């Protein structure tokens, strides 16, 4: 028999659960998302903006905000670095759900845009009168990669970091290799050069792309080489995975050979293996030029199955774009700021300050003086016009994770058949790509 106090306790617990359930269900009935919530696109007034915490980008961002604010005192920008979190995308996603996303984020990863759009967090830039035309005039054909399935722009193509191979000239020389003309253009050459580097003992590994399971790591091993091998084929075309073909198999087999022969490390390196001399090469974009200030390095395009003219080599873009978020009250001002920040003048300042490539067509000719004065960046300026982006849509991260899981197993850790593994991943990705 239960005592009255036990009964009372049970009643209190039951009441607490009921209250919690009530609150939960009430919460469930509210909220929402999905689709665009563009609202009034002409409202003007103060806006807030987040930019990356990269020091060079911060320097450019602060001058841009200052320039805008001094010319537009009634439409001031309040800017800050993206709040700390595991990743910028998670912080932005949380802000969208909470309804406190800023008007503009100048560091929006294309892989996250599909989800943000599904959440109802982004404004369709094509809804602005000059939205699509401004984007396409600035970026040319490259802009189309950033459209959603309906041909709309929910992201502003801003800047890219075309991925190439950096190599340490001093380590190459120590290993008896020609540091000015390294043999890295084909898979065979790359393997032979890598073996020479490791066998000579100048570095534990020839190259060390992150072997971890994060979805985005495929952008720095498979994607650049697949883009180069196929002349710019995206991972998904017409809703179907493309990579389970001969070119994809060859790329995967190349990397598997690198791991099998211990020329690339299977274990995560704590720090920057290239900067620390633990790897003689790195696969990165121009953002790294200022980071590797203390390293005597050169750069070449990523390898291809057969020798290819560098002017024809494609790669992964490693782009970051600008999102205009639906929580913004003064969307008219936000759009004007976006255009101001991506004007020819500000793009030039961005290029000078950060060394990253504005996603602007004819970059080498528009900023010819800059590239003449900075020949290290010339190749990147040229490469910027031949870049491939991650697939769009709300399931991009799922798609990339499915690929990464297969890649980790068969390529990095050498389990099972590489070809079959890519085919299995492609089958799974076909399903994911067809899901809303």
């Amino acid at each position, binding site marked *: 028999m239960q*005592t*009255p*106090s036990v*009964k*009372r306790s049970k*009643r*209190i617990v039951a009441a*607490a*659960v009921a*209250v*919690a*359930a009530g*609150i*939960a*269900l009430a*919460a*469930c009935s509210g*909220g*929402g*998302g*999905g*689709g665009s*919530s563009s609202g009034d696109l002409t409202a003007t007034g103060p806006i807030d903006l987040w930019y990356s915490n990269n020091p060079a980008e911060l320097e450019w961002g602060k001058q841009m905000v200052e320039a805008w604010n001094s010319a537009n005192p009634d439409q001031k920008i309040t800017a800050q670095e993206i709040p700390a979190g595991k990743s910028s*995308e*998670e912080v932005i*996603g949380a802000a*969208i*759900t*909470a*309804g406190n*996303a800023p008007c503009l984020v100048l560091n929006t990863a294309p892989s996250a845009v599909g*989800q943000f759009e*599904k*959440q*109802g*967090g982004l404004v369709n830039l094509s809804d602005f009168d000059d939205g699509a035309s401004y984007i396409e005039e600035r970026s040319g054909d490259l802009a189309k990669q950033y459209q959603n399935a309906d041909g709309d722009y929910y992201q502003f193509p801003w800047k890219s970091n075309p991925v190439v191979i950096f190599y340490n000239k001093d380590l190459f020389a120590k290993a008896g290799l020609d540091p000015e003309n390294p043999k890295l253009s084909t898979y065979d050459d790359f393997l032979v050069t890598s073996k020479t580097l490791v066998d000579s003992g100048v570095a*534990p590994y020839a190259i060390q792309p*992150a*072997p*971890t*399971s*994060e*979805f985005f790591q495929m952008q720095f091993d498979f994607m650049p080489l697949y883009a180069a091998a196929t002349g710019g084929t995206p991972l998904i075309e017409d809703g179907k995975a493309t990579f389970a073909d001969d070119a994809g198999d060859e790329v995967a087999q190349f990397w598997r050979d690198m791991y099998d022969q211990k020329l690339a490390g*299977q*274990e*995560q390196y*704590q720090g920057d293996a290239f900067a620390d001399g633990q790897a003689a090469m790195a696969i990165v974009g121009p953002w790294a030029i200022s980071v590797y200030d203390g390293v005597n390095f050169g750069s070449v395009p990523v390898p291809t199955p057969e020798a290819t003219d560098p002017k024809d080599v494609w790669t992964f873009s490693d782009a970051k774009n600008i999102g205009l978020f*639906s*929580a913004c009250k003064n969307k008219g001002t936000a759009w004007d700021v976006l255009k101001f920040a991506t004007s020819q003048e500000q793009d030039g300042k961005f290029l000078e300050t950060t060394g990253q490539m504005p996603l602007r067509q004819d970059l080498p000719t528009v900023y010819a003086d800059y590239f003449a004065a900075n020949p290290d960046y010339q190749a990147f300026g040229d490469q910027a016009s031949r870049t491939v982006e991650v697939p769009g849509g*709300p*399931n991009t*991260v*799922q798609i990339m*994770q499915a690929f990464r*899981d297969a890649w*980790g*197993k068969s390529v*990095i*850790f050498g*389990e099972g058949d590489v070809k079959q593994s890519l085919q299995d991943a492609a089958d799974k990705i076909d399903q994911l790509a067809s899901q809303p």
Partner: protein
Amino acid sequence: MTSAVDSPGAPAPARAGAPGPGSTAPASGPRAKRRLSHRIFGRQPLGLLFSSPYLVFVIAVFAFPIVYSVWISFHDFFFAAPGANPERPFVGLDNYINAFSNPAVIRSFGNVGIFLLINVPLTVVLSLLLASALNKVVHARTFLRVSFYVPYVTASVAVVAVWLFLFNGNGLVNTVLGPLAPDPSWLINENLAMPVIAIYVTWKQLGFYILLYLAALQNVPKELYESAATDGAGRIRQFFSVTVPGVRPATLLVLLVSTVTGANLFTEPYLLTGGGGPNGASASPVLLMYQLGIQQGQPDVASAIGVVLVIGVLIVAFIQNRLVGERD
């Protein structure tokens, strides 16, 4: 008639409880109201007032998220901006089927099972042994206690760096082992990654459990040890016949807490093995919940995993309570 002649100071059960078999007339008037209020709020309504902040805390921080996540797990749900109104239809068990048809999810539950099998017994045995030893130490007692506690209060991110330095391919452990070092190395070896994590977590949490046992040891009467010694029991016999039964409530607590925290394993595979590697050999359910729910925008599937995990932990805790808990 009810026992209406009770004085105001009469025992609470007579008034707060339901009327007995002899009850006849329905209560009415102020007395009935008082009885109703007693039935709802108890004899001391002020007590409820005092405990209400904690009740609110429990509802807001524990009950609400649990109920909400159960609701999410039965609906087609994704996080959305305020003002947008997506449809969130009831999908029955679809999210559960989706989650558990994914081999990675099944494997993660197996991984955490391996983790618990290593971590929980090791935690109980080591912390009890070390607490018993520390209880007898006279010199440098505080220093030793603090030494064991320091890893517990140190941020995992910082301590993980030390373990990476120890256990990576070119790390100290492999250097010492030389040709005996495993290949592939510890953290990229499918058979060793999870055991290394389990040992790491055991080491890191040990200080907290030692403190629990030290507190429990203070309540074991000295007379019991004296009686056992009089009866001829040696140190080992005393340990098993006096200490172990004497700290049984603490053992149950250690079992429950280490199981619950172990089932929530996230930081260590996230940092130590590069996101649950190699090949998902150290991925935990919570790590997958993070990947699915936060990174991949499938909080509904992640919630289904979470609900099953909670049920699993409750079952394990129930069994532990039955096996180790006091039966009197």
